[in-house]
């Protein structure tokens, strides 16, 4: 071919044309697909929230299985009675609370603005659930999830208790086979029945190594057994729960005293 590909002008022209073509292609693709992608993400959020309160299609002790995408919108309306947004001392109802971007709220809080905290009130089999969204850091990237606590207090010794009815965890880029296992059912199921209170303090639940309770029979120790090879992800989960519980502490205290 006759083109002299070594010339500087050619190199610059080639780079410019390439950038324009690739940029146009990706921009076109992104805008063409964005509606479909955000719809998928919206349904996923509903599935995750419902999963945490026990509305799912899990069978036996197998894998995580959400309620189907065709049924999720209807189920969300049925089971989620109310969506609350906490802003300082103010509590308002908002049907789009589940779409609140926690990451954005976090940076708002850092900038000194009041942070909006969503809570979902669910009802299933005459039991009322409060589902709290969480967000934190794993080893490589963000981790997030939902924890559902139960309003019906169970009296353990002298303490009222706040029992976890279900959790859901997800992550952006934890190591497959190690940290990524936080979204496996055997890990998430361990949290069910654990208490987030200890002697009246909101301590959350820690992912602990060597707690001599691998089968997770002790439900009052505020601990679940850690995943081997995923120490930092596990610590991230503990920190995430602890931080979210402390953010929602005033709200949880109001429920507890009612």
């Amino acid at each position, binding site marked *: 071919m006759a083109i002299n*590909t*070594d010339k500087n002008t050619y190199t610059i022209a*080639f780079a410019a044309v*390439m950038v324009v073509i*690739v940029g146009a292609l990706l921009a076109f693709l992104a805008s063409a697909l964005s509606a*479909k992608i955000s719809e*998928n993400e919206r349904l996923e959020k509903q599935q995750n929230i419902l999963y945490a309160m026990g509305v799912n299609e899990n069978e036996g002790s197998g894998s995580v299985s959400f309620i189907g995408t065709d049924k999720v919108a209807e189920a969300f309306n049925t089971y989620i009675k109310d969506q609350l947004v906490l802003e300082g001392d103010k509590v308002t109802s908002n049907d789009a609370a589940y779409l609140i971007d926690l990451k954005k709220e976090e940076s708002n809080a850092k900038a000194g603005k009041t942070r909006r905290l969503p809570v979902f009130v669910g009802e299933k089999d005459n039991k009322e659930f409060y589902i709290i969204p969480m967000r934190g850091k794993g080893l490589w990237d963000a981790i997030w999830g939902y924890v559902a606590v139960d309003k019906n207090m169970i009296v353990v010794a002298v303490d009222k208790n706040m029992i976890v009815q279900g959790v859901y965890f997800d992550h952006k*880029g934890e*190591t497959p*086979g190690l940290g990524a296992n936080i979204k496996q059912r055997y890990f998430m199921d361990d949290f069910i029945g654990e208490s987030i209170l200890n002697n009246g303090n909101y301590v959350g639940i820690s992912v602990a190594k060597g707690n001599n309770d691998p089968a997770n029979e002790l439900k009052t120790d505020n601990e679940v057994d850690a995943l081997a090879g995923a120490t930092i992800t596990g610590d991230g989960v503990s920190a995430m729960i602890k931080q979210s519980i402390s953010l929602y502490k005033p709200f949880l205290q109001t429920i507890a005293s009612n």
Partner: protein
Amino acid sequence: MGILSKKDAALILDPLADNNPITIQVLGICSALAITAELEASIVMAVSVLFVMGMGNVVISLMRNIIPSKIRIIVQLVVVATLVIVVDQVLKAFAYELSKTLSVFVGLIITNCIIMGRFEAFALANGPKRSFLDGIGNAAGYGFILVVIGFFRELLGSGTLLGIKVLGDPIEKTGLYAFGYENNGFMLLSPMALIVVGIIIWVQRSRNPALIEEN
């Protein structure tokens, strides 16, 4: 090989054994360490690389006469990155579940040195058909080793294969665990991937002494 000439067939078959990108050229080790703790992740990675490498090699080969040599590495990176993003976006829109499993691999595919290596060493000098075969062959050679490592790491580390408990339940003490067998947690950590690669290299070179380098 009816459709392929002997030379073309060698493009696919060589990287599977005597010119394997991982065990002979020792490329792509980083991703082999990162994602082989589970067999499923290994398979997903192998398929993704197969796709990106086959397509990428063809694209680079078609452009080989017009790419300015001064910025060829950048052009190659742009091609890989574009392909990976296109695949990622399309999956997110039409196969959301699958895209979630793949999200971890996106970055690892872009930085996979085998892909860049084949662009540089082969696609820039050969036609699209041969480049495609070369891409598929090398990706298959890479994927094969990945699956072997994933198999042993998941089996010995977690006692499962593709998430199924093949050796019994370690907590209930059934199957092999009833006889006092324990999972080797060390298999799940990245150093063991290197040791498994080392063992594969050892086996391969003792079967074929011609592969041993002279000092």
